[in-house]
């Protein structure tokens, strides 16, 4: 059997039972590799459950910097009896299966083409620890220690991480390091270390950070001055507001009084959550809510009100697998359509599609400027993959000179100086964006009635069809104005002189798409690529499509929603738009993108076509 030989380029997966403390041990492993200067991309694959069901943690280690899922597993740490069969099967030929050898492995599970490495984790823990809870917890730390030996990890890095992790709880440091040492020693004594697959300290992480997208969104909101957060708990968005609370409690306490320069309200449901965010924005504070698919359905009525009454509001949608409750702890990009056209009647909503934690931070901040500038909802569409996993990212940065763009708001002085009649919905500047006033600004001028019913330019109720149409047309012109404000797409040229085929993708397909584009180039199939960052689509998107004969659109949903949105909005011939979809709840992988495009290109030139059904295996 040929063992896989690889330094700093592999996939390792941990199969655990949820609720057993494995998450922090697995994190420790990923962070240690990261601190050794090697790019990592950990993914938590967890059930909708608190205790007792299978959970996996997959780490892509890639010195080359590939951060998407690759597909396949080189090393499996299989410590969950429930999923052993499937876990053994998943290992690539020549790979390794590490297991708890306290109990003999069922011989039916054995494979001849992979290596089995037994560690008597339970036995060691029973010998070393009296407390049943510790016996469980340290099993996880023990295998991390063993991995340090098997993969030649820097043990000092692990020890430092443990010290960092238990800052303030110092008495936990020594027992954890002891467990690491036990594992390390066992592996050293019983196996020839390191394995063919191992790590080596390098400097490929630069000044990068490891951060989840949800915390990055929360920090963006804090930096751009959001002071009101209203929300209702829902996976995978909950940690947005958790992080907002955590960092606000650190960074937003008034030094004089000890009081809070922010307000967080856990609402009774998503309807109330967005109602509160709209009420606060209407009254001049920056406010947001965070939710996921089912919440978007519930918020749709209010989104229509905010669109029509022109109240800014920021909504962070951390997408998960739908429809209905779907697979609530798996990822997808399946709210593209419902967000773009949220609510009844003719509505269109500004959407942003971040790809990295850095972009979550930037869009988290920009969304408030955009919402205030355009006086309309702005929906940031992240997903579970980006939101809940640590992603390697450029560090966050903030321009000290940045001033919040609160958009067109008349102050008391403006109103005082005004001789003409104030009209809330008058298009004074020709960009279709009218002027707001905040409640309580001026004793006799500038008040108006905000309503979801039709009204004239002065916010007076009307049932005149002519006035209604005028207003709807202005909203449509405002949508045109929005195109010049939203983030432009990122264009990645395939080769000099351009390519005939292009690839369009957005959000978390970024990492896998980039890797696939590189490998396609190597295979002689170079393609230009465009990453959409916002809806409405700006002119670059339209130009890119018209400049290419054929465009692959990568969507992580069944119906190719972004493809449909592009076809509908830009009136493109669907024949040239090839849907490349993955929607099994796992992030799309580079091998699938490569395979799909290579096969499709092959079929065009009359070559053999292959069948590839699933996008993430």
């Amino acid at each position, binding site marked *: 059997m040929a063992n896989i030989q690889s330094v700093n380029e592999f996939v390792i997966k941990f199969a655990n039972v949820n609720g057993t403390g494995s998450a922090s041990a697995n994190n420790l492993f990923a962070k240690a590799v990261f601190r050794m200067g090697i790019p990592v991309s950990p993914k938590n694959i967890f059930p909708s459950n608190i205790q007792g069901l299978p959970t996996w943690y997959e780490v892509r280690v890639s010195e080359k910097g590939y951060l998407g899922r690759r597909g396949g597993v080189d090393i499996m740490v299989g410590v969950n009896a429930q999923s052993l069969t499937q876990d053994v099967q998943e290992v690539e030929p020549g790979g390794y299966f590490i297991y708890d050898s306290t109990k003999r492995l069922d011989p039916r599970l054995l494979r001849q083409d992979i290596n089995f490495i037994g560690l008597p984790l339970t036995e060691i823990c029973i010998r070393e620890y009296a407390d049943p809870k510790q016996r469980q917890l340290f099993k996880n730390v023990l295998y991390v220690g063993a991995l340090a030996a098997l993969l030649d990890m820097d043990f000092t890095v692990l020890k430092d991480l443990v010290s960092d992790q238990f800052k303030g709880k110092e008495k936990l440091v020594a027992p954890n390091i002891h467990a690491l040492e036990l594992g390390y020693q066992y592996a050293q004594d019983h196996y020839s270390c390191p394995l063919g697959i191992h790590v080596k300290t390098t400097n490929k992480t630069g000044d990068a950070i490891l951060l989840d997208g949800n915390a990055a969104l929360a920090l963006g909101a804090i930096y751009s001055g959001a002071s009101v957060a209203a929300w209702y708990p829902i996976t995978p968005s909950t940690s947005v507001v958790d992080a907002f609370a955590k960092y606000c409690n650190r960074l937003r306490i008034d030094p004089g009084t000890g009081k809070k320069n922010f307000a967080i309200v856990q*609402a009774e449901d998503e309807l109330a959550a967005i109602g509160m965010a709209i*009420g606060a924005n209407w009254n001049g504070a920056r406010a947001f809510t965070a939710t996921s698919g089912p919440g978007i359905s519930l918020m749709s009525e209010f989104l229509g009100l905010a669109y029509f009454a022109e109240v800014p509001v920021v909504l962070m949608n951390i997408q998960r697998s739908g429809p209905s409750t779907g697979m609530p702890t798996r990822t997808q990009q399946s709210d593209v359509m419902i967000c773009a056209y949220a609510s009844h009647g003719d509505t269109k909503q500004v959407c942003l599609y971040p790809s990295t934690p850095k972009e979550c931070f930037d869009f988290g901040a920009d969304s408030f400027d955009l919402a205030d500038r355009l006086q309309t909802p702005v929906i940031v569409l992240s997903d579970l993959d980006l939101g809940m996993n640590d992603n390697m990212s450029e560090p966050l940065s903030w*321009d000290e000179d940045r001033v919040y763009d609160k958009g067109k708001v008349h102050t008391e002085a403006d109103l005082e100086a005004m001789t003409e009649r104030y009209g809330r919905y008058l298009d004074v500047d020709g960009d279709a964006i009218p002027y707001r006033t905040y409640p309580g600004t001026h004793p006799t001028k500038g008040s108006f009635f905000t309503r979801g019913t039709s009204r004239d330019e002065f916010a007076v109720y009307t049932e005149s069809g002519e006035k209604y149409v005028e207003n709807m047309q202005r909203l449509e012109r405002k949508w045109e104005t929005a195109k010049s404000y939203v983030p432009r797409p990122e264009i990645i040229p395939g080769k000099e002189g351009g390519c005939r085929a292009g690839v369009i993708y957005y959000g978390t397909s970024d990492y896998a798409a980039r890797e696939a584009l590189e490998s396609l180039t190597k295979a002689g199939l170079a393609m230009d690529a465009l990453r959409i960052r916002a809806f409405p689509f700006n002119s670059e998107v339209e130009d890119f499509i018209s400049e290419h004969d054929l465009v692959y659109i990568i969507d992580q949903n069944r119906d190719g929603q972004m493809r449909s949105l592009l076809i509908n909005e830009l009136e493109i011939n669907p024949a040239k738009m090839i849907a490349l979809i993955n929607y099994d709840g796992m992030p799309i992988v580079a091998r699938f993108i490569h395979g799909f495009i290579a096969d499709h290109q092959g079929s065009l030139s009359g070559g053999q076509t292959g069948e590839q059904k699933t996008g993430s295996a």
Partner: protein
Amino acid sequence: MSFIQPTFRHPDLPVNDVGFTKKDYEGSLSTLCAGCGHDSISAAIVQACFELSIEPHRVAKISGIGCSSKTPTYFLGNSHGFNSVHGRMPSVATGANLANRDLIYVGVSGDGDSASIGMGQFAHVVRRNLNMLYIVENNGCYGLTKGQDSATADVGSKSKSGVANLYTPIDLASVALDLGATFVGRSFSGDKEQLVPLIKAAITHPGFAFLDVVSPCVTFNNTPASTKSYEYVREHLDASGTFDFVPMKQEITTHYQPGATEQVHMHDGSVINLHKLNQSYDPRDRRSAVDAMFNAKERGDVLTGLIYIDPNTQELHEMIETTNKPLRNLTEKDLCPGSKALDTINESLR
């Protein structure tokens, strides 16, 4: 709307402490049916705000959907208003209040808006003790959709359709009391004497103040067999007592006999003089208030007046410890932690 509101006002209209006449508190001409109870409530709000010497622009009016929710257009024309979504006024009011704790929030809702589609938000705004006046203009029916029974209609009550209501009613005042509301009152749109001081006390109350105002629907639910008709309510009114409200700035002069009047001191120095009809009933005692409501219901009466008050209460901002300054007035300096703090955060993530 083709009506033009007359602009003429008597030149010698009285001016209040902050320099406004009653006219400054009026709104657009009402488009509700002639004789609608809701218009009397709007007039009472105008009177109360004028008498309290509130600057009109310091009030924010928020409503849901329905006949009652239309009324904020018809009072306080110099205040901002927000006619939001059916049943969702409480959430919009909550957000608005969080953004600026210095304004006065008047929420107007109806029995459909609060007791049916908005029951959830109603319950939760009570729990949060949001500092606002929440008025339900309660006519027992859906007016705008032509008279269907609402959830506050009594069993057996017949609207214009002549069909008796089958389902037990939701008494919003009882629900509010049960959920811990810190101010609960009930009145009748036709009883201005009682309604105006009640609104004044409710606005002054530093927390959630709930007023259930029975307000007959003259078009669809003013039949002899309806329990929300003018005739029925007038015959079954059972006042908990009479009272007057003395704002902070006025000298307290009471012409009642000592011993007959009890004073409730509000946080800002205002005083409510209570003249209770039943000496065993104490509106500062929740259990006593619940009993009084229950007893009246058993008799088939509509208990009105100040039903319950807890003048020393903590509203939402105090509970969640927000800064005293309105959040919306905070600037980059207060809100943005700056790039140095971000460097520290970056460092913690390596």
